[in-house]
C-alpha cells in the first residue's frame, strides 16, 4: 500500500497498520462477509504480532476474565498460552503456513535468563521477523510488568536480548509507570530497535448491586476507546525523547484515530480491542489511511511526529 508504507527499526512495513498482541487470531483472516469476500485481506497489515508466549505453558487466570465497561474493555486473561515448546511445535508452523506478512513474536519471561533462553530458541526460525518483548502485562505476577517498571531492569534485559539477535527487537511498555520516557530511553540505549506502547492500564469494575468485582482477579487491564487520550499523550512524550521508531496502540478504532497517533510520533500503529468489535477494523483503517494520503498527495512517513 504505496502511501502508507512505513518501517520499524529493521523491518520494512508494506502497511503502517498492524495488530496488537493477543487480539487477533488467524481465524480472523478466514472470515468472510455476506458476498463471500474476505473481511481482512492480510496485505492490509504491515506485520502480524502473535499473542504473548511464556517459557512454560500458562493455563491463564480464573473466570470471569472479561468485562465491557462504558467505553472500554477490562481483561484478566493472564497470558494463557501453550508455552515456548508448544508454540514452536504447534503454532509456529501454522503461522508460517498462513502468513504472507512479517511475523513478530511477542514473548515474556520470569527472569532475564528465561527471556534469553527463549530468544535463543526462536532465533533459528527464519519465519520469525522480529520480537516484541512484553515487559508490561498487568495480569501476571512473575512476567510482564514485573520487568517494565524499572529503567535499570529494562536496560539489563534489553541489552542481554539485543546481544542475541539481529532481528527487529520491539520493547512493549506499560503506561502504569511514573515516567514512561525513562523506560523508553533505557530500552533505546540498551539496543531496542523500536518501542511499542501502550499496554493496558490498570482497570476495575464492580457491580454496585452486589458489591462484587466483575473480574475474578478483581483488577485487570483496561483497553479500548477510553484509553486513547492516555495512549496519545504517552506516545507523544516518548517520541520527544527517543530516536527509534514507535509502534503505537491504545484505543485505535478508526483511521482517524490511527492518524492522530502518527502525528503524535508513531511510525506504525496496532489495532487491538477494536478487532473484537469488528474483525475487519484493521483493513478499514489501512484503507482509510491510504485514501486520505492519496487524496492529499502525501505519504504517511511525512506525517510522523508532524504535530502542530
Amino acid at each position, binding site marked *: 500500500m504505496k502511501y502508507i508504507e512505513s518501517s520499524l527499526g529493521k523491518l520494512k512495513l508494506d502497511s503502517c497498520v498492524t495488530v496488537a498482541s493477543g487480539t487477533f487470531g488467524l481465524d480472523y483472516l478466514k472470515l468472510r462477509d455476506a458476498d463471500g469476500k474476505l473481511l481482512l485481506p492480510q496485505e492490509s497489515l504491515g506485520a502480524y504480532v502473535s499473542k504473548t508466549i511464556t517459557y512454560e505453558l500458562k493455563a*491463564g487466570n480464573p473466570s470471569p476474565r*472479561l468485562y465491557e465497561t462504558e467505553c472500554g474493555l477490562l481483561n484478566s486473561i493472564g497470558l494463557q498460552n501453550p508455552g515456548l515448546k508448544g508454540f514452536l511445535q504447534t503454532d509456529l508452523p501454522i503461522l508460517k503456513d498462513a502468513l504472507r506478512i512479517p511475523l513478530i513474536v511477542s514473548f515474556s519471561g520470569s527472569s532475564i535468563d528465561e527471556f534469553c533462553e527463549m530468544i535463543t530458541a526462536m532465533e533459528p526460525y527464519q519465519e520469525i521477523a522480529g520480537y516484541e518483548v512484553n515487559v508490561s502485562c498487568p495480569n501476571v505476577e512473575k512476567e510482564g510488568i514485573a520487568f517494565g517498571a524499572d529503567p535499570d531492569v529494562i536496560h539489563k534485559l534489553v541489552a542481554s536480548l539485543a546481544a542475541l539477535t539481529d532481528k527487529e527487537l520491539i520493547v512493549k511498555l506499560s503506561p502504569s509507570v511514573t515516567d514512561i520516557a525513562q523506560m523508553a530511553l533505557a530500552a533505546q540505549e540498551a539496543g531496542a530497535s523500536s518501542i511499542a506502547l501502550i499496554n493496558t492500564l490498570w482497570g476495575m469494575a464492580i457491580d454496585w448491586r452486589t458489591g462484587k468485582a466483575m473480574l475474578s482477579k478483581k483488577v485487570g487491564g483496561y483497553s479500548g476507546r477510553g484509553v486513547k487520550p492516555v495512549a496519545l499523550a504517552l506516545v507523544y512524550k516518548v517520541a520527544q525523547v527517543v530516536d527509534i521508531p514507535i509502534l503505537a496502540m491504545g484505543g485505535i478504532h478508526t483511521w482517524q484515530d490511527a492518524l492522530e497517533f502518527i502525528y503524535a510520533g508513531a511510525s506504525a500503529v496496532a489495532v487491538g480491542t477494536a478487532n473484537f468489535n469488528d474483525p475487519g477494523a484493521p483493513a478499514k483503517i489501512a484503507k482509510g489511511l491510504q485514501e486520505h494520503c492519496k487524496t492529499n498527495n502525501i505519504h504517511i512517513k511525512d506525517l510522523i511526529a508532524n504535530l502542530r
Partner: protein
Amino acid sequence: MPLWTVEPLLWISNMITRELLKVVDVNIPAPQYVLLKLDAGKPMKGLIPGMFYELRAPSQAGRLFKPISILEVEDHLLSFLIKVIGAGTEAFAHLKAGDGVEALGPLGNGFPSINGRRVLLVSGGAGYPPLAWLKREADEAEFCLHLHGCATADEVFPCDLLYTVDGSQGHKGLVTDSVESLISDHKIDLVLSCGPVPMLAKLTNICIQVEHYVSMEAYMACGIGVCHGCAIPVDSDYKLVCKDGPVFDATRIRWSEL
C-alpha cells in the same frame, strides 16, 4: 472429545460469516425480554440447538457484540430471545422491522442429539432458548419433558412443567426440586440444561448417574477463540465457551471455581 463436536476451524472457513441481517420482527414477550426475528437471507441448514450468534444493534457500534443463543430456525429466519441486562442487550428492544443487526455466526458446538433418547430438558431464566428449540424437535426423542424455572411469573415461557421461586405461577420452588424423581419415574437417560451457575451445579450433583450436558454463559469479546476471555474451568484446564462450547459435559466442569 464427544463425537458431536465439530472442528471449529472448519466452521470458520465454511460457515461463519459476519454480515448485516435484516430485522423481521421485534417483540417484548415478557418484561426484560426481547424476541428478535432476523432474516438470514438464505436457508439456514445444519444448525444445532445450543449454537449462538454474536449480535449487535446499530446503536452499539464500537461496543462489543453480545453472544445470544438461537431460539428457533425456520428456513431463512433466525429467532432470538434476549434478556435485557445492560446497554448492549437493551438496544435490541429499540429495533424496528427493517433495521439491520450485525451478526457473526453461527458459533459454538451445540447440544448432542436427542434422537431415540429419554430426555429431560431443564432451563432457568434466560437459559430458556436452546431447550425450547430442542423441545420443538422432541419427535426425535423417545421421551422428552421440558422443565423451566424462573424467579417470578414475569419470566414465564411455554414449557411442560413450570416452577417459580415466588410461587406466582406453576409450582412454587426451584426447577431442580423434582428432577431426581422425574429421572427415575421416566427412566431419563439424557439431561440437557442451561441457566444460572448455581442451578447447573445443583443439577450436576443430582445427575450423577445420568448423562448431563450444560450450555454455559460467559462474557465474551471475539466469539471465535481469539481473546481467551470466556474461559471456564474444565477438566484440569480452561476451555473456551465460544469455541470449545458453549455445551459441555457437566461432570467435566469444576463448578466450585465458578
